[in-house]
């Protein structure tokens, strides 16, 4: 089975974001960018499926500007066989991304499509589910375990009350949660090898998709700062404060 992995280029998770002075957006000038951490888990899962003989080929796909090639090369260094960039101006909104990925899906005909559950920039948690709806596929979101048995994909999901397992008919969609696996680091030889792996570029026009934005960002501001409080020197003082000052116990 072929596995398609959708990845996103985002701000590195170690970078502290700052809001621009004009409140138009966050400031990403000269900021380190990386593969979205949940998408790294998606790549890892796909590569493990290939290593265990359950997947025949791993194709990484990204939607965004040409700089996303860097993240696709990372995916190739981590073990993807080839990569596809759907090149757009900036990053389209989730419905358009889902439509573009549906176009790639129709061309590639994979048996499994793996997404990160959310990107750490927009924090939307939408694209995988939107894609699944457009493609008419079953979805195993927030996956902590994926097992393939013939034409069935069993996905254990992290839900509010605990864990839920669903059986999906392949082809199916999985979105990864944190505990699905621990992604590997790319080795230097693999980084070198990745430079020679194929990376194709497609356009929205070639996929017959009109990229549309329907959500306008009017303003971006930093969150209300929480004022740090005081340090108390004993449990006794703490209990006194909670009882008599904060009055919460």
């Amino acid at each position, binding site marked *: 089975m072929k596995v398609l992995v959708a990845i996103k280029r985002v*701000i590195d998770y170690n970078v*502290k*974001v700052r*809001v621009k002075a004009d409140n138009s957006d966050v400031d990403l000038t000269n900021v380190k960018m990386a593969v979205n951490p949940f998408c790294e888990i998606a790549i890892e899962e796909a590569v493990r499926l290939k290593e265990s003989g359950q997947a025949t080929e791993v194709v990484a796909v990204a939607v965004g500007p040409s700089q996303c090639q860097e993240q696709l090369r990372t995916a190739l260094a981590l073990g993807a066989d080839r990569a596809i960039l759907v090149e757009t101006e900036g990053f389209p909104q*989730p*419905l358009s991304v*889902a439509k573009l990925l549906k176009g790639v899906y129709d061309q590639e005909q994979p048996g499994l499509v793996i997404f990160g*559950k959310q990107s*750490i*920039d*927009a*924090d*939307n*948690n*939408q*694209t*995988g*589910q*939107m894609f*699944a*709806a*457009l493609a*008419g596929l*079953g979805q195993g*979101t*927030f996956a*902590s375990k994926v097992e393939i048995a013939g034409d069935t994909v069993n996905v254990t999901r*992290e*839900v*509010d*009350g*605990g*864990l*839920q*397992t*669903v*059986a999906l*008919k392949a082809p199916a969609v999985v979105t990864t*949660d*944190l505990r699905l696996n621990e992604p590997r680091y790319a080795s230097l030889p693999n980084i070198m090898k990745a430079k020679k792996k194929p990376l194709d570029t497609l356009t929205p026009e070639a996929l017959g998709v009109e990229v549309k934005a*329907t*959500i*306008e*960002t009017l303003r*971006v*501001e930093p*969150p209300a700062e*929480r004022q*740090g*409080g005081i*340090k*108390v*020197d004993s*449990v006794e003082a*703490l*209990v006194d404060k*909670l009882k008599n000052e*904060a009055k*919460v*116990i």
Partner: protein
Amino acid sequence: MSILLVAEHNDAALNPVTLNVLAAAQAIGGDITVLVAGEGCGAAAEAAAALPGVSKVLCADAAVYGKQLAENVAPLIAEAAAGHSHVLSAHSTNGKNTMPRVAALLDVNMVSDIISVESEDTFKRPFYAGNAIATVKSSDAVKVVTVRHTAFDATPATGGSAAVEALASAHDAGVSSFVNEEIVKLDRPELTAARVVVSGGRGMGSGENFKILEGVADKLNAAMGASRAAVDAGFVPNDMQVGQTGKIVAPELYIAVGISGAIQHLAGMKDSKVIVAINKDEDAPIFQVADYGLVADLFQAVPELEAQI
């Protein structure tokens, strides 16, 4: 305006977060219809009919909607959305699972995790792990929105008397089925609804050591939470995780024990009214948001705390 509110429930009863979503719906204004989809969900539909300010309850009671499989429920919601200007649900794992699917079926974008209603089409939502707040305006014909429940004060649970209308349609996409679930049995308040939350982090050292937090939690009738580090280390189950990708909580009192305060954890609890941090590392970032910090060995401080409250 006409709002379709998708109820969060377990068939027998409404999940309390539905009351917070109702508050968001009332902030938007207009006519409110509640959709209850499930299997044997009549009791939940009756509870929805009693919600204040609700004009109608749609009840889709069918085996295919059991366990809220998104593949089957999403087409139902999309169908019921006809004629409505907004579709709202909680930003719970259920809402996150189903609502983007609904949006795609309606060919619209979606606004996730709103924390305020500015107008009928404009909302505030956190992004970048809560490090920035965006004001966004949707031009879609139907606004599909999930609501951060801690940002809206719950409405009363009673006061209304809406009619319940049965929906006959049963969508079966035939691509997914429920296998099993391991739902953690709680003898404490639910994490996202508790007045007090006691959370442990990596500093707890082991799952066994979480027991010392239980005494404090028992005395305060608190829910128990954990940081991602504690869940990843296998100390406690995933449903206890508080943070950017876990549960968002905003109790009256949040007691963080042995939690350093990674930004992703803070994103899940910094709206708590009073934050207490107990950590032996005086430079831990958690102290920057804590109202009361105690630099101490938790294994001494927690039993002392239990004894004194």
